[in-house]
């Protein structure tokens, strides 16, 4: 059994049902991939987000839900299967990327998995996320593994290079074999409420991506307010993003639960109104096994189990894996583990 073998459901017909408020509503059972919609400015303007209330909900997510024992093991394995194992440093090298790819294929020591009865899982991460420069290296290293290669693109992390160059960048990475593209938006479009510009930008990136899976990084740490986060999420989804992603990992504040909650609520609303499912990727600042469980229960609570897989949920992280490995070894042996016992990425 492979963790990445579930297939995206095919696009269905789009029959809208009005709910009396002028909002088209879809039956909840629909699972359409995102093909985008026209830019609906009324919807964007209508957004209400109360920061204090969102923070309160986020604070209790981790205290209302917890998983223990075998359930915790299972959830941690799930977290690994949803990881985009990432290296985005100035000192990245081919060798470093090869090491990462090796870890991606064998994220947890085989003996530990056997002891947990999960040997048959063929556990691997969802994708490896690198700069364009290392796409080919990664593609070669991961050939036949079922692990995707994701390239950060479009002037990552600031997204301020000329638009033509950014589009070219996407095409080059796809040519190099990248199966997923993580784009960054122009944050100033959000501050200026230039929703048309933002929509056109993301739509043009999506066009360049074609069938390749596109994640739109909002740079939420730069967007300052949660209302901005919600609005930017909506516009990115309307413009056709397959995933929306919190951060580049380079902002001073990265993936926080309040930000995640707001984005996930936007995804839910978008699904309710259009029937189309958009994925979510928190990235940056997620370092512990405990955090991974909080994020998983956020998804389960707010979006449901349909989203709890690599098709619709990814962690952008690297350090988190080490902590999860130690927790899993503890489950397997009953002894607390040490980090040096686990192979580094």
């Amino acid at each position, binding site marked *: *059994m492979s963790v990445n073998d579930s297939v995206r459901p095919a696009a269905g017909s789009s029959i809208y049902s009005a*709910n*009396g*408020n002028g*909002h088209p509503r879809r039956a909840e059972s629909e699972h359409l991939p995102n093909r985008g919609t026209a830019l609906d400015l009324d919807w964007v303007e209508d957004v*209400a*987000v*109360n*920061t*204090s*209330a*969102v*923070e*309160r*909900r986020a604070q*209790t997510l981790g*205290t*209302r*839900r*917890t*998983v*223990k*024992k*075998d*359930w915790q*093991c*299972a*959830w941690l*394995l*799930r977290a690994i299967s949803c990881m985009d194992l990432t290296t985005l440093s100035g000192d990245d090298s081919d060798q470093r990327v090869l090491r990462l790819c090796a870890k991606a294929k064998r994220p947890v020591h085989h003996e530990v998995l056997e002891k*947990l*009865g*999960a040997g*048959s*899982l063929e556990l691997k991460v969802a994708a490896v996320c690198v700069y364009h420069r290392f796409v080919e290296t990664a593609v070669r290293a991961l050939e036949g593994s079922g692990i995707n290669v994701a390239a950060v693109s479009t002037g990552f992390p600031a997204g301020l290079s000329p638009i033509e160059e950014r589009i070219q960048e996407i095409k080059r990475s796809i040519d190099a074999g990248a199966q997923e593209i993580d784009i960054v938006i122009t944050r100033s479009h959000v501050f200026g409420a230039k929703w048309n510009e933002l929509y056109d930008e993301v739509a043009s990136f999506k066009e360049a991506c074609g069938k390749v899976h596109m994640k739109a990084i909002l740079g939420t740490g730069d967007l300052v*307010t*949660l*209302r901005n986060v919600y609005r930017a999420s909506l516009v990115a989804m309307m413009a056709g993003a397959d995933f929306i992603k919190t951060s580049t990992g380079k902002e001073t504040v990265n993936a926080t639960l309040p930000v995640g909650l707001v984005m996930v*609520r936007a995804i839910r609303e978008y699904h309710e109104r259009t029937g189309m499912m958009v994925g979510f990727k928190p990235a940056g600042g997620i370092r512990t096994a405990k955090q991974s469980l909080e994020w*998983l229960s956020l998804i*389960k*609570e707010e979006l449901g*189990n349909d989203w*709890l897989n690599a098709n619709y949920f990814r962690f952008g992280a690297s350090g988190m894996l080490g902590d999860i490995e130690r927790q899993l070894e503890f489950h397997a042996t009953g002894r607390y583990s040490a980090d040096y016992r686990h192979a580094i990425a």
Partner: protein
Amino acid sequence: MSILEKFETMEYGPALEDSKEALVWLDQHKREFGHFINNEWVKPSSGEYFDTNDPSTADRLAKIAQGSAEDINEAVKAARAALSGWQKLTPHARARYLYALARQVQKHSRRLAVLETLDNGKPIRESRDIDIPLVARHFYHHAGWAQLLPQEFPGHTACGVVGQIIPWNFPLLMLAWKIAPALATGNTVVLKPAEFTPLTALAFAEICRQVGLPAGVVNIVTGDGRTGEALVNHPDVDKIAFTGSTEVGRLIRKATAKSHKKISLELGGKSPFIIFDDADLDSAVEGLVDGIWFNQGQVCCAGSRLLMQESIAERLVEKIRARMSKLRVGAPLDKAIDMGAIVAPVQLERIRKLVDQGVAEGATCHQPETALPDKGLFFPPTLLVNVHPTSTVAQQEIFGPVLSAMTFRTLREAVELANNTAYGLAASVWSENINVALQVASQIKSGVVWVNSTNLFDAACGFGGYRESGYGREGGREGLEEYLEPEWFKRAPVVKVSAAKSDAEPKTGDSAAIDRTVKLYIGGKQARPDSGYSYSVVSPKGVLLGEAPLGNRKDIRNAVEAARKAEGWAKATAHNRAQVLYYMAENLSQRAGEITRNLAQFESAKSAEQEVEASIQRIFAYAAWADKFDGAVHAPPMRNVSLAMNEPVGTIGIACPDDAPLLGFLSLVLPAIALGNAVVAIPSERYPLIIGDLYQVFDTSDLPAGVVNIVSGRTSELLKTLAEHDDIDAIWCFRDEASSQAAKTLSAGNLKQVFTNEGRAIDWFDSAQGEGRWFLRHASQVKNIWVPYGE
């Protein structure tokens, strides 16, 4: 099920908090508890015990002593004996004890949380993250008040021995709300925990002993309603503090009416949860989870009446239903559930009955297909739509996880629906527009308003209700006032009951003057009494001074209606009210000679002169106060502005003293109207002719019609109508002891606030007694508005 299968299903597994330590503690006590009196465990005099059970399993946790009147008597004796020693301690010494209690609660927090959850059935998340931390916070905060007491409350003294009766929904937290302020202000305590949930109170008793609290300062007597009744009726208890049902609150009001016991009541509610179309709907739905599905809805301030703006109602109901389906109901000790068990079979039965009745009356019931445990007392989260103000489920407190939803069209209608209840404990308002939120907050009749939030509590912020949700506040400065009294008042002498009127024919006075007709004063007009009768007013020397109108219950009815129509006075600016009062002083001063001459027929010329002069000064004092009796901004530990606003009580009925007919009248009526209340006053029965002088002053001073209404007559009859009137919000009585008792007894119908002299004499000429904050505090009620902020 293997890990692989769990990997596929991604469900939550059981995550039980270990109850071992709590059970060991119960075993150490051999699962049997006596009362805690004088720092000793005492067996019940009757030898009678009852069981306390885990409502999620029906397992017996321990045997609990049933307190008898004899046990209560022992406890009260212990508290009385401990009182002087406790009060002799320095404020700092008392602060140290409270600080120690806070520390101990924190050190044993998990055991207390588990014990609470075992006994009550609430989720361990709530007892661990909300109840117990708030308990510790309450003791810390009040350790501070103990230290600051003499500086912050000069001239005040403790009530004495305090009887406290607490409910089962937040057992240890309610104990903290009761005991912390009582000890901080130098009282000693006899507390009766709820019959269903006595365990954490008993664990707390042990903590009291551990910190070396002097014996008798805190006594805990367990038992049922009979035990509570014995405590309420004990003659040596100086104050009763009660949290529980409105029904029992009424009984306590009546039972204590014939004593000098001070009482504070925190009663039921049917709190509105108002969502406007511009609200963050997802967050508002989460607010409902914290509102009505917190503690299985067994919360007096639960947002149980959902008021939705029409345009978003359908969408909102969908969201609520989706959210309900995600709520997990199960073993209270499970760390991953949202709702635990209902406290007792009788409560579960009540919830079922009311929901059935709601459906029978036309409501549509939505319940998710949530799995409930096979055994134990559980009820699913429930939403009732198609509910109308007339529905039973929109009026009665259900005290369960049941939300009754209605719609509104405009802000005005939202406020109207919100206030369409006999209760007034709390309200939640959701809107992203600060103008809408604060406008609604200001208009809702409730002691607490949460803007874009719900069920926030803190030791620094007062909590308590308007209307039949009770009176008095818990927490903050206003909460301490409930455990203090002015020192002079405790020592004040008893009012001399005026001698029986002689039947002798009064001597007629000087008949040269034109006959003076004094009428009632209702709605800004002079009115003839409905009865068509007048009665003779005779001077102390037996001289006939004139006739006063003999008002009856219909005149009172008319006066109350006129007062209700004068609600605009409350909305007038404080500056504006001050101006009217100053103008009154001016006009009284103009007429000083004439009024002094009139008064001099009733009392000595010198005394009349002094009284008029003192009256002018008193008017000035309250004109000064009108725009200075400010509220406060509290500092609870969160990003928030908590505004404690002093609001007028509403319409106040006032029975004025016989002596000092002018000054006594003004000393009571002025603080009331200075803060925006309307008044129906019964003037001095012996010299009601003062009405004639007063309305001339009022009429010339731009006092709006209906703000002050005066009905003379037989005080005892008028007082009865006034005290019983359901549209009167407070009754003040400053006559003899019998009148005070009558006012208290008769007030129980709508639980109007009562303020009396306890039949004690007040020196109206002494501004330390007859003027100031003591009166203003009773003329106002504190509304705490919580406004979290952040963008």
